[in-house]
């Protein structure tokens, strides 16, 4: 699937001018509130008609103002999951789920009712009314409803933003399953690094109505300067790892990554399971010789490949550890004291306890189910 967007649209004082292409499994539209993410997704869904521009999915033109093409939303076959679920209050959960199916030509119905209900774990809710569901349950049903319309593309507009942390943790695994077990391309709007780093294969960064950057998640997440100011502290390297083994004596899990073994608090995942971790740049220290007498357990040798001035006294240092780049935020004073420069051989040091539920993409012992 390729989604190509090239749009100019004005809303009062706000001007959106976005142009990007993405062929990712899950493309995140990422940016602070007011950056135009939601407007952009509404333009793709057909809820808003752009002043000027073109949107196409897999070569099928949905809007082209120059050619006077505008496919109305009900003919686009683009599923949408809204932040506020928007379940129909006068219908049961089952009727809500069946709603979109109804309008899908039978030859194009690929979504199976039972499979979707299983995928989202909503079998026990079918007879209920939306008003009797929790926030997390509502959102799962909303995802199911969108899926059952057998969409060609699924848009998710901050589906977790109105939920508390516990509910977010409840939904995230389902979105991951959606990404890994179905073939529907997903565009996911979010303003938090935690969600984007965990879910996205590709990221489009929006700032003030413009595309600030676009690319693979790992490349974008370690460019701290691209992240919204309030989320910069969450930025850092994103690594795809596998569970190597569990260390039951100390309650830890050892992950195998390109950069080497990484020890994190015990994860509720079986050996061999993929785990995507995010190493916050602020959690990484740099040593010029292999540190001894240090409590930190993860010490990764590598070479400095980038140095970029950060906020105030900071420098962002990129360390290539066997092909995986780990980013560290250190002070300019330390950089000079250690004489760090491009090509220096260094050690990146990460405390095991700096990993938590938000950056390991898996439940911690508290809700272990493996």
């Amino acid at each position: 699937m390729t989604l190509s967007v090239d749009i100019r649209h004005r809303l009062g004082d706000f001007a959106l001018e976005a142009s990007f292409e993405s062929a990712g499994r899950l493309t995140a539209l990422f940016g602070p509130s007011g950056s135009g993410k939601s407007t952009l997704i509404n333009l793709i869904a057909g809820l808003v008609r752009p002043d000027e521009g073109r949107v196409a999915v897999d070569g099928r033109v949905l809007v082209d103002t120059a050619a006077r093409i505008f496919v109305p939303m009900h003919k686009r076959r683009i599923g949408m999951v809204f932040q506020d679920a928007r379940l129909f209050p006068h219908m049961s959960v089952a009727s809500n789920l069946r709603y979109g199916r109804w309008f899908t030509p039978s030859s194009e119905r690929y979504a199976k009712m039972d499979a979707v209900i299983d995928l989202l774990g909503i079998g026990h809710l079918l007879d209920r009314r939306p008003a009797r569901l929790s926030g997390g349950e509502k959102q799962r049903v909303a995802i199911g409803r969108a899926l059952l319309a057998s969409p060609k593309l699924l848009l998710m507009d901050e589906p977790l933003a109105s939920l508390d942390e516990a509910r977010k943790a409840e939904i995230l695994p389902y979105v991951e399953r959606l990404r890994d077990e179905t073939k529907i391309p997903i565009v996911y709007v979010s303003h938090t690094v935690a969600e984007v780093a965990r879910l996205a294969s590709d990221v489009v960064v929006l700032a003030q109505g413009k595309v600030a950057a676009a690319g693979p998640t790992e490349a974008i997440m370690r460019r701290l300067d691209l992240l919204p100011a309030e989320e910069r502290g969450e930025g850092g390297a994103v690594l795809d790892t596998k569970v190597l083994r569990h260390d039951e004596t100390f309650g830890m899990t050892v992950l195998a990554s390109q950069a080497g073994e990484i020890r994190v608090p015990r994860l509720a995942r079986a050996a061999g399971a993929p785990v995507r971790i995010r190493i916050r740049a602020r959690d990484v220290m740099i040593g010029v010789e292999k540190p001894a007498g240090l409590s930190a357990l993860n010490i990764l040798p590598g070479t400095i490949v980038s140095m970029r001035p950060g906020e105030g006294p900071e420098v962002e240092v990129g360390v290539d550890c066997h092909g995986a780049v780990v980013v560290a935020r250190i002070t300019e004073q330390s950089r000079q004291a250690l004489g760090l420069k491009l090509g220096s051989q260094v050690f990146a040091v990460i405390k095991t306890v700096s990993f938590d539920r938000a950056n390991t993409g898996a439940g911690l012992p508290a809700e272990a189910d493996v």
Partner: protein
Amino acid sequence: MNWLLDLTPDEWNAVRLSIKVATVAMIASLPPGILLALLLARGRFWGKTLLNGLVHLPLILPPVVTGYLLLLTFGRRGPAGAFLAEHFGIVFSFRWTGAALACGVMGFPLMVRAIRLSIEAVDRKMEAAAGTLGANPLWVFATITLPLILPGLIAGAILSFAKAMGEFGATITFVSNIPNETQTLPSAIYTFTQVPGGDEGALRLTLISIAISMVALIASEVLARRVGRRMDIE
């Protein structure tokens, strides 16, 4: 009790006629009522304020004036009346259909108001959600908007019915007071009060009209509550 139910044939006719007139007026007003309410709630067009004023006119004008205007337009020689009689065989003047028309027109502003308010209360995001699921605007209206405004629809219909049951001025001006044809309950009560010894009949019909109105009101309450519970909007 016997005294109450011991109606003369003419009185029975008045009761039956009133219910018939009010029911027809209510049902016939619903489609144009919904349409106008939609237009006023959602439309953006030139002359909307004027249209709104026109719809509300029967509420402000003296009923006699409304009745007289109906007589001028829908009477046998009126432009609309002549046209309908000639092409569709529909005659209003001095017929029960005329009474229904007068009652419908008098209740129309009340009905449109109630429906319009409920349309304005509908969360349009729900309709957008239905649109993304593949429903075209007509289906969205039928499956989302209409069910969501059902309580308002019921309220509007009952208001129109109640107004029709009590309508007097416009009806008597437009179609007069002919027993068995256009003599509704209020006209019958009025007639009783005009003849010596008519008090007993007037009281009987008054009590009956109170009973009918109460039953209609309670029925609408029950219905609205049922719909509300079905939707779980507490």
